[in-house]
């Protein structure tokens, strides 16, 4: 658990300056193409020639590779090993060890699957590194997303660090009173109540007060709200979004045409 709650890194780059919706479209297009394309090497090439260069364009390559090596690569490696050993396709074993065996087909299958997952997770990581959550929410609210959704996401991101800090405090406090969190499974299961109880009740007490406070600030008001911070949406953004949608449609129709 890192101390900073959002991945966002404040830099000045052309990727940062893109409209949040354009970046979201870009991410979804990358994922859809990686998963839908019939061509075997599509996800691999997307990683090498789209996601990695984009991290340099966004000037977040160092953070990107760090996150990738910490979060994405272990998962992808695990998936690759498990699937090449256990996916039931192919005839000839190229590797055998007691009951473990891998065929050429299953290794190829596992390799593509792992890279697809890498494309999916790393594209999202890139998006999160270059987009501030509140910027995304402001932009989406302006386009018609109900303000309540924006409230939920932004306030969760604020509450979450407090809540996690509180849970660490509760764990230490209950341990110092002699709560057993290490021995037999039954004892550890019994420890759920004294750990979860204080955390949950403590935070549920605030709900009513908060509700009154935001109600007094016009939370449910139906009037149009204005924003102090304008997010630019250039014509380049619009044409890029159109182009990406076109690419996805092209992939799907190629898929249908070839099958």
């Amino acid at each position, binding site marked *: *658990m890192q101390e900073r*709650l*959002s*991945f966002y890194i404040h830099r000045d780059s052309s990727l940062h300056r893109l409209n949040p919706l354009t970046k979201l479209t870009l991410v979804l297009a990358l994922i859809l193409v990686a*998963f839908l394309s019939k061509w075997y090497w599509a996800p691999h090439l997307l990683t090498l020639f789209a996601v990695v260069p984009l991290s340099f364009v966004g000037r977040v390559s160092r953070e990107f590779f760090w996150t990738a090596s910490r*979060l*994405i690569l272990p*998962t992808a490696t*695990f*998936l690759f090993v*498990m*699937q090449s*050993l*256990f*996916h*039931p396709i192919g005839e000839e074993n190229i590797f055998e060890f007691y009951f473990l065996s891998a065929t050429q087909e299953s290794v190829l299958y*596992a390799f593509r*699957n792992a890279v*697809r*997952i890498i494309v*999916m*997770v790393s594209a*999202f990581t890139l998006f*999160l590194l270059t987009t501030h*959550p509140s910027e995304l929410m402001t932009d989406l609210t302006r386009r018609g997303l109900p303000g*309540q959704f924006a*409230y*939920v*996401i932004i*306030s*969760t*991101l604020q*509450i*979450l660090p407090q*809540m*996690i800090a509180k*849970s660490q405090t*509760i*764990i230490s406090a209950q341990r110092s009173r002699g709560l057993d*969190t290490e021995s037999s*499974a039954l004892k*550890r*299961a019994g420890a*759920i*109540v004294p*750990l*979860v109880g204080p*955390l*949950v*009740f403590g*935070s*549920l*007490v*605030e*709900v*009513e007060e908060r*509700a009154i406070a*935001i109600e007094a600030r016009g*939370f*449910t008001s139906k009037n149009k709200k204005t924003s102090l911070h304008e997010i630019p949406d250039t014509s380049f953004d619009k044409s890029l979004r159109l182009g990406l949608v076109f690419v996805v449609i092209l992939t799907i129709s190629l898929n249908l045409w070839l099958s």
Partner: protein
Amino acid sequence: MQIFTIAIAVALGILIAWAIITKRMTWLEKIKSNFNTQAWVLIPIAIAINIAVGQIVLVLRLPVYLDSIGTVLVAVLCGPWAGALTGALSNIIWGIAIDPGALPWWPVAAMIGYMAGRMAQWGFFKSWWRVVVTGFVIALTAAVVGTPIAVYLFGGITASGSSFITAYLLETGRGIWESVLSTNFIAEPVDKITTAMVAFAIILGLPKRTIGGYPKPHQVEVEGGADRSQLYIAIGVIVLLVLFAAFMLRNILGG
């Protein structure tokens, strides 16, 4: 596999029939009735509870996740649509803030919230044994919704620990759908029944005045009676459900 297809088809049929029969309110009004200001304030706190409790349970090294207690709470107090929204946003925010790998599982979390809300609507959140049944139903739903995501996105084997069971089943020559579905049926019930019971314990501890401010307070009016005998009935129900699950599993694996 046959039995399962039929069971799912029958369940869907009942749901659709129920939807047609009770179509007195329009859908939009029904969805809106799930949300008032207090519900909107509860949702972010519930999401934070999901994640924080998930982390606490990680410390205890128990074979459960308990990362949907908040979702179930919202679903029961506010309604199925609010529950579904909480579940979906939980995973999305988990993805934004902690681990992007949690993102693709949002339909499962949403379905957990929706199902918990529906069960509460049908009166299945008023005593211990009913809560156990709710937990079991949520688990079955989560297993069914999670299977296509695991198969299509991850090729059957995901990054979670229960994938070793899937791997074993694949190795013994079962099909991929069968293996993933049976793994989920083994792994989910313990987690979801515990989740539902913890959520119920929390509701029992909340003051009536607080509960009254949420959209659906009547769903958790706890039915009286001896608490102790209630608990025994609950344990009996758990045993029955485990036997039932074992029977179902033998059917899938045998058929």
